């Protein structure tokens, strides 16, 4: 435990002192402010009628005329970047600088190093996601003056939770490449290649092949699918689906029902993350640590 906590504290401090995390935060906050003021602020009125429920959640889902520029789309692109940038050189930079030999000759279990790094990355992602959502919520609240209901707050927290898992997947993936690849540029490139493949190629291939199940291999689609269910409780398409497959009638869905529908995607995301982490764990634990 001593070792894990020491590594965790050091890595967390490193993350927050690093230039890349600063740039990522600035990018995230800037996008959040732009989205809330110019996209949600301009378009939310057109979306609301007298019977509209979940007005506060609309702040995070309204996209206006530009289909791709909504908060959920932004997060689906942005979180992989955060995870990859935190993780891609986690282990191989320690090796390249000659720190890994020194580190692993201290009286700690070897997995403390990789666990501490993963946890610190996950906490960094969590802090970033929390602050972005709170920033948007705060500005949005001032703009529309409609406070969120308890159900909406719960949904937002679930959204934050799923976002952290999604960022965690990319962190675990990048961490795995940093264990496998000896060179930092190789691991960066491999992580980005998977990112591009998952975000662009899988949907294209799936639509060519005509098998939409293929989409479930893409963490990005798993993510946007599950948050759509959560953040848009009265989505017509999801309502149709839930009626057809689960026999659910009410519109909008309750949070329990939304979770029920999103559950397979959430579990798949967790499983993919666990798979990547287990890969790096096994490789790292068996490896010879030589100063090269």
């Amino acid at each position, binding site marked *: 435990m001593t*070792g894990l906590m020491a590594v965790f504290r050091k890595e967390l401090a490193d993350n927050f002192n690093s230039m890349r995390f600063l740039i990522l935060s600035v990018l995230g906050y800037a996008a959040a402010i732009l989205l809330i003021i110019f996209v949600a602020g301009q378009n939310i009125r057109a979306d609301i009628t007298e019977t509209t429920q979940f007005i506060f959640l609309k702040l995070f889902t309204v996209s206006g005329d530009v289909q791709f520029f909504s908060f959920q789309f932004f997060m689906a692109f942005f979180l992989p970047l955060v995870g990859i940038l935190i993780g891609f050189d986690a282990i191989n930079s320690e090796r390249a*600088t000659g720190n890994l*030999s*020194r580190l692993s*000759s*201290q*009286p700690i279990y070897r997995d403390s190093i990789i666990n501490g790094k993963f946890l610190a990355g996950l906490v960094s992602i969590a802090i970033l996601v929390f602050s972005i959502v709170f920033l948007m919520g705060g500005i949005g609240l001032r703009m529309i003056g409609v406070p969120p209901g308890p159900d909406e707050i719960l949904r937002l927290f679930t959204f934050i939770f799923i976002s952290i898992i999604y960022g965690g997947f990319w962190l675990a993936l990048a961490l795995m490449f940093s264990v496998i690849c000896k060179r930092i540029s190789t691991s960066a490139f491999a992580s980005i290649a998977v990112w591009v493949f998952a975000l662009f190629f899988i949907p294209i291939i799936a639509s060519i092949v005509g098998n939409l199940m293929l989409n479930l291999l893409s963490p990005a689609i798993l993510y946007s699918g599950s948050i759509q269910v959560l953040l848009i409780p009265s989505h017509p398409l999801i309502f149709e689906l839930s009626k057809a497959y689960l026999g659910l009638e009410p519109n909008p869905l309750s949070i329990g029902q939304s979770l029920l529908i999103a559950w397979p995607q959430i579990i798949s995301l967790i499983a993919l993350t666990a798979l990547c982490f287990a890969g790096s764990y096994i490789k790292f634990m068996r490896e010879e*640590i*030589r*100063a090269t």
Partner: protein
Amino acid sequence: MKDKVVIETKDLVKNYGKCIAVDKLNLCVNEGEVFGFLGPNGAGKTTTLLMLLGLTEPTSGTATICGYNSTRESVEVKRLAGYLPEKVGFYDDLTAIENLDYTAALNGLPRETALKRIKELLDMVGLSEVSEQKVGTYSHGMKQRLGIADVMIKAPRVAFFDEPTAGIDPAGIEQVLGLIANMARQKVTIMLSSHQLHQVQKICTRVGILSKGHLVAEGSVDELGREKIAGGKVRIEVQLAEPSSRLVKLLEKVKGVTGVERTGDLLLISCNKDLRRQIAKVAADCDSLIIQMRMEEYGLDEIYMKYFSERQI
């Protein structure tokens, strides 16, 4: 009192695919020794050190430190043993103090104790003036000295140094070796690997020579020199003013002398023990003036060259 075994390997083997890096190595280092682990590049020195520290798994055989199995009880081993790798690295954007503080935290030292010890150690290795500077600005020799402080943080009972003198200037080498010798005086058992023999010769109480994964020789530097090279013989070189052939004949008759070679005014006398007194007497009897006389000593370089030239044949 029986010497306490601190470092021990039993039939230690490490294969990389078909390549055998370490082959049935049996090694034993007692408490308080400074053991020099010598051999050319690729002899398996680093691999052996890594196995002793549990940083890589042996193919077969066991390595133990103070009775703890290096593979299975590696955390206990690493609590007792410090290791300075060949290309030691620090976090370049942290200061010396911050770097050592991290090591202390990994060792679970309370912060107060840690900061006090860090200050003492940086004083000891002569880095206290630059302790607030980022390690990125340090020279190689300074980093090596910081590495020694880093090893000392955990107050180890055993310390492993892999090529501690590689790539630093002569003054730096003196400092590093001085610090290691100082550790030895504080009852730390030391094992250091090197291929720069004359440098480590001074501080090692015992050396082992490794070649292609085998330990080909082991013992103190003097022992190795006399027994292994000259076949237990002592060679005495005498320079005389006017060596006569009568003197050579008389010398050959001295008990214990096995051969006398003459080149100019130099006589090279092989004998099975130190016979300088008898030789001087014979020379005096013959009225020959001894200009100088010395017993040949074997340095590690000669021992080493001898081993590796023999092996190549």
